[in-house]
């Protein structure tokens, strides 16, 4: 009896949590179909009176979403590719190579993870301006070409691989470089999948940084592009919701498919193999 009750409580809390998490999505989705009058009505309606794609058509006519989409993809591919590459190299160095101060350097890097990105915005901003990259796509890529967190996850995986594999490969004539790409990276595929997915999601959703360093319409990414509905052309919440739906749906689908890799990879990286 007591057991059933505690189970009931647990599910109650979980269901409440799920509702709180899902409500904004629900609201976005239904609002995307509402008319201007419906969305401004108080108290608000739960559902639109009739389904029409009108908002979507208007939203796409108002801003170059295709361009934003291309920009988002370019930034995501470049930054995910570069971050993955540098993380693999750094993780290998910290896991396998012996050099003075190795552990001290790694510890200080891990300590740096505690500094939130927002703290670095001003210095990063001046750096980008000094480099003459303000309002260009590289400004969105350059600060995101390495990651301590992903390096950490990968290093934990590399550490869990037996030394004998490394020495076997060395004796078989492999250089460190060849061993890394031929043996370690294929073996690390689950961890790599995780960091690539996490990184892609973060890049796709990035909003604050693009807002600071991008001004021209042609260089905006999708999340920053959505701002068009509140700033430059007045406020059109129903159009914003329609466009947001289009931006978010691919990410949600990706997340649903890749969910188990993300959770497994993070747990695995943390647990040392």
């Amino acid at each position, binding site marked *: 009896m007591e057991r059933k009750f505690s189970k009931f409580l647990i599910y109650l809390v979980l269901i409440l949590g799920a509702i709180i998490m899902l409500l904004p999505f629900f609201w976005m989705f239904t609002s995307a179909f509402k008319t201007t009058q419906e969305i401004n009505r108080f108290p608000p309606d739960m559902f639109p009176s009739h389904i029409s794609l009108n908002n979507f058509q208007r939203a796409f006519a108002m801003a170059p979403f295709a361009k934003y989409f291309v920009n988002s993809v370019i930034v995501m591919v470049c930054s995910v590719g570069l971050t993955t590459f540098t993380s693999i190299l750094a993780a290998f160095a910290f896991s396998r190579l012996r050099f003075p101060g190795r552990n001290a350097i790694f510890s200080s890097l891990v300590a740096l993870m505690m500094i939130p990105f927002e703290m670095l915005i001003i210095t990063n901003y001046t750096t980008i301006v000094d480099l003459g990259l303000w309002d260009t796509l590289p400004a969105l890529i350059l600060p995101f070409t390495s990651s301590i967190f992903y390096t950490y996850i990968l290093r934990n995986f590399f550490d869990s691989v037996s030394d004998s594999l490394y020495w*076997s490969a060395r004796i*078989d*004539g*492999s250089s460190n470089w060849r061993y890394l790409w031929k*043996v370690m990276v*294929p073996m690390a595929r689950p961890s790599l999948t995780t960091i690539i997915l996490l990184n892609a999601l973060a890049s796709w959703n990035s909003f604050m940084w693009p807002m600071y360093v991008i001004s021209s319409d042609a260089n905006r990414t999708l999340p920053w592009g959505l701002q068009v509905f509140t700033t430059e052309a007045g406020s059109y919440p129903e159009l914003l919701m329609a466009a947001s739906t289009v931006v978010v749906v691919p990410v949600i689908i990706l997340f649903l498919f890749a969910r188990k890799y993300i959770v497994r990879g993070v747990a695995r990286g943390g647990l040392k193999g």
Partner: protein
Amino acid sequence: MRVVLDHITKRFADVTAVSDFSATLNDGELVCLLGPSGCGKSTLLNMLSGILPVSDGKIFFDDEDVTMLPPEQRGIGLVFQNYALYPHMTVLGNICFPLETQHVPKEERLARANEIAKLVHVDMLMNRRPAELSGGQQQRVAIARALVKNPRLLLLDEPLSNLDARLRLEMREEIRRIQQRTGVTTIFVTHDQEEAMSISDHIVLMKLGVLQQNDLPQNLYNEPANQFVADFLGNPPINNLPGTVSGGAFITEEGDGVVKMPLFEGIADGRKVNLSVRSESFVLDPDGPLACEVTRVYQMGKEEMAYFKLGECDFRAYIDADEGLKVGNRVRLNLKKRGVFVFDRETGERIK
């Protein structure tokens, strides 16, 4: 290829794992590095492969000084205890891997891989992955991978210890067969004396990083250099009777047992020694110098394993079952020529 270890020493931060080790291993032989865990045999193997640098001394392959050569330039094949197969590659991929790094053309690679796979009997498993193989099969693949590049020297680090007892017997004969077919000089690390005795041409026995004896297997057993060698080899273990020499006779510690034999002549009075006798080196002899009492008898078919008491010392011996020994019998035993040694009890040094 002849391998020469010239005064090799390996020091770690606070321990000396191998100290002043010198030995010559002959071309084409299978040599066992034998010793209890922690005796430095794996450290020695790792220095031969180049994984560990030596602290002192030199290693020669034939006349070439390889002491400073990195592992990939030494021309060796190495099989680890855990086989270290690449889990994401097939058997064929694993065997071909060393040839790929040497940029051997693809056709030749496949031909050599197939040839070596036939030799070690894994040619029907070429497309499997290591996880789909049994322990013995993984072992064979690891040997194939080590041999495919025609190494000058094959190193095996406790290759059988992860296998179950039956497979271990089978694989050790396999290793012997493969070694003899290829004629590659092979060094095999093990802590199992029986394994070492059964397959090697020479055994190098180590204790705490120090060479004890480098000899033919039967010589290690029949002519041990010191107490440690005598104790390490043989099953059941050798009988050690502690005592003192006095007037050409051996007297047990408490003085209850006295053995007068020519064996003890010429040993200084008062020297503390062990009389060490293999279990098969006792014979019943009414005029023998050992007056003993039978304390236990185990039937073992043709022979019996009998436990005796000489003074306060216990020992065991194989006795012909026809003798019909009974517990409590008082008998006299004599010693054979073979398998009887006298060691200094303090230094372990062999006296006779």
